[in-house]
Structure formats: C-alpha cells, structure tokens
C-alpha cells in the first residue's frame, strides 16, 4: 500500500477492523435482508430486519476468517470481469464478421456458461473457499495434472465412441 493519504487511511481502517468486522457485518445484513425480502418471508418487514441484524452479529466472530476469502474473491472477480469485458470488446469487434445476426456468446450460451462456472469454481477454491466450508482439500499441481490427463483421456474416448 503506497504512502499516500488514502493508503494511510486504508491501513488505519484495516487496523481498527473495518475490513474484518464492519464490512462482513454489513454484507451479511444486506444479503440476509435482501434474500428475505426477495422471497417476502416472513411478511413482517421488521421481523426481516431483526433476523438480518441477528445473522449479521452471528457472523462477527468469524469476520477475521471471512475477510481474506472476500478479499481474494473480489480480486478474482475483477480479473475475470476485466477479462470478460476485453473478450466482449473483441467479440463485438469481430462478431458481425463471424456471424450475421448473433455473436459467439449468443451462439454458444452453454459453452460460455460452463467456462464461467469453471472460472467461478477456480476463484472459489483459489480464495480458500474449501477451507471455509470445512473441506481441507489441497488442490496442488499433481491433482491438476491428474485431472488434465483424465480430461484428455475422456475426450479421446468420447472422440472414438462418436466416430463409431
């Protein structure tokens, strides 16, 4: 973090637990209240408010655990968001050349859906989400290599069976 005034301010906020406690508290409140209001359950608005506040306070003790996860998730979100924006610019630029009416995203929604889901899972695992949900699985190079081989073998089998 640079020595600018804003950098110092963020450092101070970090020191007083703004990122570890206040923000997770607010996030939980917003998510729980939003979900309850989305489904209008319970019907009483004040009951929804109280439930959301209680849930937000319940999360406070684990705020320190949630903070690094949220931090990594947001960073991953920016990386993927920016990647998608650049991809859309490229596709729109060349899109009308590759097809008259629809671009690649419209033409292959399932493929792009799967790619996005894989990216989301990778970000979740990379941010330490597995530890948070209680699965102590270390995803390392050997496992990824093994998975890559399995994917290649599956593709080979699929290719041969398709020919038959």
């Amino acid at each position, binding site marked *: *973090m*640079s020595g*600018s*005034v*804003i*950098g110092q301010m*963020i450092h101070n906020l*970090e020191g007083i637990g703004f*990122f570890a406690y206040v*923000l997770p508290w*607010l*996030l939980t*409140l*917003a*998510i729980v*209240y*939003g*979900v309850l*209001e*989305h489904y209008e359950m319970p019907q009483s608005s004040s009951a929804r408010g109280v439930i959301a506040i209680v849930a937000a306070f319940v999360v406070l003790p684990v705020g320190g655990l949630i903070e690094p996860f*949220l*931090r*990594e*998730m*947001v*960073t*991953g*979100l*920016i*990386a*993927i*968001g*920016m*990647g998608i924006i*650049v*991809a859309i*610019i*490229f*596709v729109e*630029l*060349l899109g009308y*050349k*590759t*097809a008259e009416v629809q671009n*690649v995203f419209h033409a292959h929604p399932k493929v792009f859906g799967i790619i996005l889901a894989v*990216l989301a899972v*990778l*970000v979740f*695992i*990379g*941010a330490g989400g597995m530890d948070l949900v209680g699965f102590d699985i270390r*995803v*390392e*190079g*050997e*496992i*990824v*290599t093994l998975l890559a081989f399995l994917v290649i073998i599956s593709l080979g089998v699929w290719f041969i069976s398709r020919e038959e």
Partner: protein
Amino acid sequence: MEEMLEIFGMEFADPFFVYALPWLLVFAIVYGLLSQIGEGVPKSKSSRAVISTVLAFFSLLFAETIMAFLKQMGSGAIIVLTAFIFYMILEELGEEEGTKELVEGHSKGFAIVVIIIITVLFLGAGGAELIGITQMLPAFDPATMVFLAIVAFAIYWMINATEMENEEK
C-alpha cells in the same frame, strides 16, 4: 499514455487511479450483475447497493495490484485491437481482390486466434495470480507447452485429412 496523463498533471500512481478506479469498477460490475439477473437479485435495490459497496471496499486492500493488472490488460488489449482495426481497414480496402473472405471463411480459426490472444493478455497481465490458481497449476515450461500444442495440432490435422480422403472415396 503516461505522457498524456502528465499533460493533465496526473500520474498512474495518483490515488484517483490507484483507489477510486478499482472501487468504481467493482461497484459497477457487482451492481450491474445483480441488477441484470431477472428483476434484480435481491429485489431490494438498497440491498444490492450495500452488497456492491461492501465488495467494492474490499478492492481497496489490493488496489495497487489490481491497478497494475488493469493497466497491463488495458494497454495490451488496445494494442491488439488497434492491430485488428488496422487489419479490418486493409480487408475492406481489398474487398474486390477477395481478401475479405479470409475472416468470414475462417471464422473458427479467427475465433481460436482471438481466444488465444485474450488468454495470453490475461495471463501476461497476471490474471492467474489474481484468481489465485497459480499455486494449483503444475510447474511447466512454455517450450513444452508449445511442443505439445504442435503435436496436438498435427494429430488434429492428420485426422481431418484422413476424414476428407474417406469422404472423397
């Protein structure tokens, strides 16, 4: 780019670029995504705004890394886009000579090229580190990957050639 900013008395290291832009970007992406789904998830506009604001604040902790990534990715994308635009101008000029068919006739090939360019830009800007998948990836050297890609391409080409021969028979 940096010289242009200097005209306005600004630098990339200014707090505006380092903190305000990542904050705004995350806010816009999250709020936009939440509002995009159906009538908005959750329906409450204020909940969406609070969720976006909270997540935007988390970007401040990694603002410098994020800004370095955005700068790298943005400049790389602009260079490649300029090259594409230049190519498209040439293509339009050479319409009568038949070069226009190059993109339209090989749309799949161009799509693969675009995907490779975007992936290279993303990885080159440090996207893999930001997503946090570098510790998951096995150690490999680019030369091996290029060699494997060439082998894969050769196999694909051989299979295609055999198929075409069979069809001709």
